[in-house]
């Protein structure tokens, strides 16, 4: 009777250098110029703000504008892969994002939010960036699913951008493969929370504290 040798073990990958992590840090969320504003609007608000007691007006106006912004976030209909099916389910009647003031709009010119739903290939990335650039400021981006967050199961393929935050700045990451509509809905609510604290200066609000 033949005696079987030991089963060959596949060596465990050792992450000696955290090259990917360092790269992620370097490329993460770079949009140095921030949101673009009208210079006239900015000088006007600065004038009101420096007026005695004017801060009360600007704060109230800021709150009002932020309330308006967060209550009418229009996502551009932009589906890339299977996550788009879940995104469509979120838009449809059962989960109905329209009660949050979100109207899926088929033009980037009228949209405030881009939900990157699916794998971004290196060939698709310039088009994605182009659509993002066509959206008027202030604009937000939600990265939906593992592929858009980090490349997901295709991370070690030759053709996939390893996270859409290497192409555009991302505000909310929704994990999952694919995330169910509840997850995306939660992400959109977190985004509304961020928009409520949006500053006039164009600086983004601090990210939500981790609650576990």
């Amino acid at each position, binding site marked *: 009777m033949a005696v079987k040798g030991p089963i060959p073990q596949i060596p465990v990958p050792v992450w000696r250098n955290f090259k990917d992590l360092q790269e992620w840090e370097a490329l993460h969320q770079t949009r140095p110029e921030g949101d673009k504003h009208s210079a006239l609007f900015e000088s006007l608000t600065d004038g009101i703000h420096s007026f005695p007691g004017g801060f009360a007006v600007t704060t109230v106006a800021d709150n009002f504008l932020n309330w308006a912004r967060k209550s009418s976030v229009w996502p551009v209909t932009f589906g890339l892969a299977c996550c788009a099916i879940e995104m469509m389910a979120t838009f449809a009647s059962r989960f109905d994002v329209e009660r949050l003031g979100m109207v899926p709009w088929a033009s980037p010119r009228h949209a405030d939010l881009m939900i990157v739903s699916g794998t971004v290939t*290196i*060939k698709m990335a310039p088009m994605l960036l182009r659509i993002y650039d066509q959206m008027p400021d202030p604009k937000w981006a939600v990265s939906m699913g593992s592929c858009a967050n980090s490349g997901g199961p295709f991370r070690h393929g*030759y053709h996939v951008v390893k996270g859409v935050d*290497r192409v555009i700045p991302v505000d909310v990451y929704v994990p999952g493969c694919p995330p169910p509509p509840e997850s995306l809905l939660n992400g959109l609510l977190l985004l509304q929370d961020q928009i409520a604290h949006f500053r006039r200066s164009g600086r983004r609000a601090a990210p939500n504290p981790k609650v576990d």
Partner: protein
Amino acid sequence: MTSDEALTLIGERFAGARVDGRAPLVVTVPVDAWLRFAQFAKDTLGCRYFAFLTAVDWKEEGLEVVAKVDNLDDRVSLLMKTRLGPGVSICASLTPVYRGANWMERECYDMFGIRFEGHPDLRRILLADDWEGHPLLKSYAVDTPHPPYR
């Protein structure tokens, strides 16, 4: 035309061919007989349906081009292979015989960098035109950077 008849015909006409399997017929021919063998498979064996063409990278042993053609009337399917030899990436194109080989060979060029001699329009088909390298080669590192997205 049955598989056995096809086998005897192949044995008569192509002495350098090696037969590795029966269903489908797996035939390895020398690279200089590649186009002649395709013509023979289409005309004599009646394999008029071109299924696919691809390649295998055997590292030190070089590249291997694989094509499958079928005789749908007599249910004979033929998997034809050829070894290009170590370090060689030039092969005869099958487009004069099978028009369906056109895009398959373009994809094969895209992924493996095999230059098909006699192809009418050999350029990249799936990857972008400015792509560097051929990603399905074993020598292509998975961490190859792609600026500006990597």
